[in-house]
């Protein structure tokens, strides 16, 4: 529905039109910052911020703590799963090479 990519704002270039440069995997582009600038978040605070970029607009800031919390949760789930797996045999029929795939 909407291709969004994380990128880091490296420079503000036009405060009036709320434009700045974002870097995504070494590729840079001028994008619109209007959606992440308001009274509580002056445009200067954008530099260094990680944002979700969609069609040339920084749509939202990415929350580094939440990102870390999700990754920690995933790791915990993984460890939990290891314990369960060691107790009961898994019956997944995921294939090996050209084996049967549903």
């Amino acid at each position: 529905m909407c291709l969004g990519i994380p990128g880091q704002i490296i420079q503000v270039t036009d405060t009036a039109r709320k434009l700045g440069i974002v870097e995504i995997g070494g590729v840079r582009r001028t994008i619109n910052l209007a959606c992440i600038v308001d009274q509580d978040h002056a445009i200067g605070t954008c530099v260094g911020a990680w944002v979700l970029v969609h069609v040339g607009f920084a749509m939202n800031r990415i929350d580094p703590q939440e990102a870390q919390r999700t990754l920690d949760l995933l790791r915990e789930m993984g460890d939990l799963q290891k314990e369960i797996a060691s107790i009961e045999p898994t019956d997944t029929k995921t294939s090996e090479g050209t084996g049967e795939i549903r």
Partner: protein
Amino acid sequence: RDTVITQAHGGGGKAMRDLIDDVIRSAFDNPNLQIQEDQARFSLAEMALHGDRLAFTTDGYVVSPLFFPGGDIGKLAVNGTINDLAVSGARPLYLSCSLILEEGLPMDTLREILASMGQAARQAGVQIVTGDTKVVPRGAADKIFISTAGIGVIPASQQIAAHQLQPNDAILINGYLGDHGAAILIARGELQLETTIESDCAPLHGLIAALLDAKITPRAMRDLTRGGLAATLNEIAQASNLHIAIDATKIPIRPEVQGFCEILGFDPIHLANEGKLALAVPAEQAQTALAVMRAHPLGQHAAIIGSCRPEPKGIVTLQNGFGGERILAMLVGEQLPRIC
């Protein structure tokens, strides 16, 4: 001296003669071009010393912009045709060069392109031996179109053809995918992206010679141009009626090209290349072929990316890091920036 191409240069008279002698011949100077005939001539006996078959190919070049990071239309027109010849195992020898020039094309632009063609030919040890020049009214062509044809001789020992593929053959490529496609789209400027990505435009005959000297016997070898690795692998799978299974995690992609693709929703496996080839070798030769390529400047990021299997016939599959497997189809058209 004329500063732009005019109708006169296409008239067949003095202006055309001067253009050919002063601008074109000087860029390509080689002995065969000196004979003032309508065609280049070669001794069949001499050619037969190098092999038992003639390889003959042709390609048209209409790239826009004309100049882009890593190359230009002239370098492309020489290397592209050299690569089409070299992947047959042939040693590229002679090229022809047909120029279609738009009225008003700056002479300096033409000189720069022809100089680049001459340099690329010299670097690859091939000679541009014949050609033709036409001028079309303003608007009838986009500045300059170049088509080059090439001749090479295939040594008797080389029998490279995709239908010979066998199950368990290994599939290798010689480096990063998508550099050329990304560089051109960025150079056009419409996307307003800033990157360090350059076209990988390069002649592959040297890399291929190194493989053949190391006694590698490729069953199939093709250069990856438009349509990217996906198109070429599907052609090979259909020609051999085998199943080509590729491991996506082994495919080398330059980080900037990955970033470029993530922004636009592209898949680098469909992006164009101009200095990459895919080859299928017997399984026992895979490691040697890899080592030979990695030792060559145009193969530093070479990788073994998959293998052939008997079933299901004629398709390409992509195994991803997740253990999931999907069919890798040829695209219908070209990739376009998408939002969803």
